[in-house]
């Protein structure tokens, strides 16, 4: 299956600028602040449902629907250090823009991605969802914990950690503009890290 180039960002990477990196680093520093926690149950529920939906789409390997949860100009970031670090000067486990996320999906769909042939089966438990404001009406930060059971090559293992989602309201809908996945063992050697987290 071919991913259609739905957005200019699917084809060209002009938006990954130094300013974007700086904004990313700033947004993902010191945001988990009780004073900024959203109390409103309906709003918390909205974001909880979004991250749960994301987990379901990934468990069902519905990547083309999954990526529609993301803003056209988005980032998917799995740091290689527990503190996240500076992705401009440190290798990340994964650091994808829109196009590379679509590369990731394209590769999995080729049928020749031996690390996913057959595909892993996953069951993602997403919990402890907390929503934080961050000084912009059109932006929310969401923290959640995950425990992803992955069945691959005859065994089940658990990948665990926490996720920071940066949601932005685009044309009236909340979209993921950045997803930071913090694996507990992000700085250790990991066997076959080939599923989308």
């Amino acid at each position, binding site marked *: 299956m*071919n991913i259609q180039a739905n957005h200019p960002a699917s*084809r*060209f*990477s*002009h*938006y*990954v*600028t*130094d300013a974007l*990196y700086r904004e990313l680093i700033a947004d993902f520093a010191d945001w988990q602040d009780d004073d900024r926690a959203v109390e409103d149950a309906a709003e918390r529920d909205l974001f909880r449902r979004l991250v749960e939906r994301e987990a379901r789409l990934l468990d069902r390997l519905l990547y083309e629907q999954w990526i529609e949860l993301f803003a056209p100009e988005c980032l998917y970031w799995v740091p*290689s*250090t527990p503190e996240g*670090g500076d*992705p*401009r*000067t*440190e*290798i*990340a*486990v*994964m*650091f*994808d*823009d829109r*196009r*590379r996320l679509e*590369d*990731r999906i*394209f*590769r999995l769909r*080729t*049928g*020749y*991605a*031996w*690390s996913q042939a057959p595909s892993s089966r996953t069951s993602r438990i997403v919990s402890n969802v907390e929503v934080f404001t961050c000084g912009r009406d059109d932006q929310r930060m969401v923290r959640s914990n995950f425990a992803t059971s992955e069945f691959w*090559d005859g065994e089940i293992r658990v990948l665990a950690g926490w996720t920071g989602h940066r949601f932005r309201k685009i044309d009236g809908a909340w979209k993921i503009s950045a997803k930071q996945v913090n694996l507990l063992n992000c*700085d*250790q*050697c*990991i*066997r*076959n*890290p*080939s599923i989308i987290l």
Partner: protein
Amino acid sequence: MTTLERIKTPSRLRNAPLYDWDELVQEDRVHRLLYTDPAVFEAEMTHIFGGTWVYLAHESQIPNPNDFITAKLGLRPLIMTRDDEGTIRALYNRCTHRGTTLCRWEKGNSRSFQCPYHGWNFLNTGKLRGVPWPDGYADKLVRDPKYNLAQVPRVESYRGFIFGTLNMEAAPLTEHLGPIKRPIDEWLDRNPGGKVIVCEANRLKYKGNWKLAYDNSGDGYHVVFSHRSLLETENRFKDEASSKGMTYYRNDPDRLPMYCQYMGNGHHFKDKRPNLQKRPGGLWAIESLHPGMEHVQDKLRSRFGERAESILDLAGSEPVNINVFPNLSLLGNHIQVFQPVSFEETDAIWYGTKIEDVDGTLGEDVLTDINALRMRTQEGFPNFGEVDDITNFEQIQRGLMAPEDEWIYMNRGLGIPGRIHTLEDGTIKGPATDELFMREYIREWKRLMKAEPAIAIQREA
């Protein structure tokens, strides 16, 4: 002042060799036991990861006085330290009292290490500084140098790469590296000031023998098959001006100017640079598409004109595989290290490298852009290529569980007149998909397994 302790191989191994290595390693094939027998692995930890120079760390990981990182020599846990005076040591991370590992942090800065178990305290030179309640020991017992930490007796650097060996009879490092120094020099010298800085890593693990990774390190035969998903992904946009990545392997790769070269002592070199257009930007032209690529490219080209191409090449993946036996591989911009865990488990760590603006010709913002782009190019292959290779390594390990089907072949290119050439310097050159490097390195492996290395450890006096 240091003292040296010669280590005699335990008699269990000394009585008789494990195997007739000539039976297991033949001209065109090797026996499955090289990969599946835990006893062979155990012997390798002495004869290979002890008997020859092994890559331990990069100097940029411990740049300041009293910096340390933990590392391994085979299975031996080490603390790589830089003392006040800048001397680098490879200390055994093992308390001399009861054997506890002293340091459980992967990196840091400390002048001393205190054992968490009974509080023995050691300087980062390895010298025992003190023990709790020393009057409980008979007459100054703990002043004996035998209580200073063991350390790797021979630690030498080549242009930032730190190696160590326990073998007192091994040739000096620079002599041991020999002809492989040339590609290492070229790999470094393409960067400003001829240096790189290690900056985190893609860290992978596979359930297979460490030699499967070294067998693969110069293998031009697997590329279009094992990496088919990568090549298709890199080339999914048909409107791109040039083919991306290792597409050149697709048609008749042995007739292309790229080549493989055996450099002696187990080291070998795959040079794909001759396939590139010989111009600044020739490397960048085949670089697959990465986050931020167009932004940085447009910015540099409008600012620097033609000079932008050679700057962009600094973010490109240098198309070489420089393999230093037994555990180091420089490829693209990565410093890859193979770390054996057991006969059927290996860690493959792809350290990323960044550059420095040593003479100020790039400027701070260009340096930031180029390094950011260089991070993104380096994340490409481990994510979209290496995962498929290590899956295939695991499946080799599984295939080798069949005991009766004994042999693994490495005979591609063997016995074809005019295909392989021995050059004046003794190096051996052949086409890109040849397995000549496997045959040659495993011959060196066999030599080391037969030899009795003069193993020693050292302690401060």
